[in-house]
C-alpha cells in the first residue's frame, strides 16, 4: 500500500496518512495559511513556453549573472 503512495499511483485518505504518522511517533497539525499565488503569473508564463525556450532563457540569465560576476544557482 505504501509503495503505491510512494509511486503516486494513489493518494492516501487523511485518516490513513495520520494513522501512519502516529505509528511513527509523529503528528501532522493542519494549519490554514493563505495560498501564495505570487509566483503564479511567472510560472504560468513559463508553462506556456516550450522546454527548449525555458532552457534558452535560463542560459541567457546564467550568462548575464556570469557577466555580473555572481554565481547564482538554485540547485538541489
Amino acid at each position, binding site marked *: 500500500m505504501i509503495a503505491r503512495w510512494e*509511486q503516486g499511483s494513489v493518494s492516501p485518505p487523511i485518516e490513513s496518512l495520520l494513522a501512519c504518522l502516529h505509528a511513527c511517533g509523529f503528528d501532522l497539525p493542519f494549519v490554514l495559511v493563505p495560498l501564495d499565488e505570487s509566483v503564479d503569473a511567472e510560472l504560468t508564463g513559463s*508553462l506556456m513556453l516550450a522546454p527548449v525556450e525555458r532552457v534558452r532563457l535560463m542560459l541567457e540569465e*546564467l550568462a548575464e*549573472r556570469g557577466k555580473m560576476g555572481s*554565481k547564482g544557482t538554485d*540547485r*538541489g
Partner: protein
Amino acid sequence: MAKQASAFDPYELLAAFRRHHFSNFVVIGGFARVIHGTGEVTDGLDITPSLRPSTIARLEKALTDLEATRADGKPIDLGDRSEPVIELRTRAGELKIVPEPAGTRGYDDLRWHASTEALGQGIRPQIASPADLARMLGALGRDDQIPTLLRVRRLIELDRGLTRDRGHGIER
C-alpha cells in the same frame, strides 16, 4: 587538485552522452525543474543513470570525452555504490551523478514517470517528472529547499489547471 569549473553548457554534456550512446539516464535536480518551467537558474547537470554494466561503460566513455574529474580530486569510480553523489567537473561544467536520489529507488523508479523532452540540436533526454522532483526535494528534508519544493508543487497544480482548460477547449 581539482580544476576550475568551466562554463555550464548542458548541450555539450548531453551531446557527449549521445555520441557515446549513453541514453539510459534521467535528468533530475535543478536543470530538470527548469525544463518543466520553474524558472530557476542552475549551473550544473544532475543525472540518475541506469546501473547496468553496459550503461556504466558508455557513461565512462562519455566522461573521458568530457575530460571529467572529481570535484575532490579523487579518481572516478562509478562502481563505488557507497557514495550517494559523485560530483564531477567537466569541460562543459558541473555534472553530478546521483545513482539513487533521496526518496527514490534510482533509474528504474524514475524512468517510469519520466518524459522525453526535445531541447533542440537533436537532444532528447529523459526528464524526471515534476511529481518525482517534488518527491526528491521533500525527501531531502532541507529547509533551504522548501521554497523550491513549494514552487514545484504550485507548478504541478497550475499545469493541471492549464491542461484541463486546454481539454475543455478541444471539447468545444
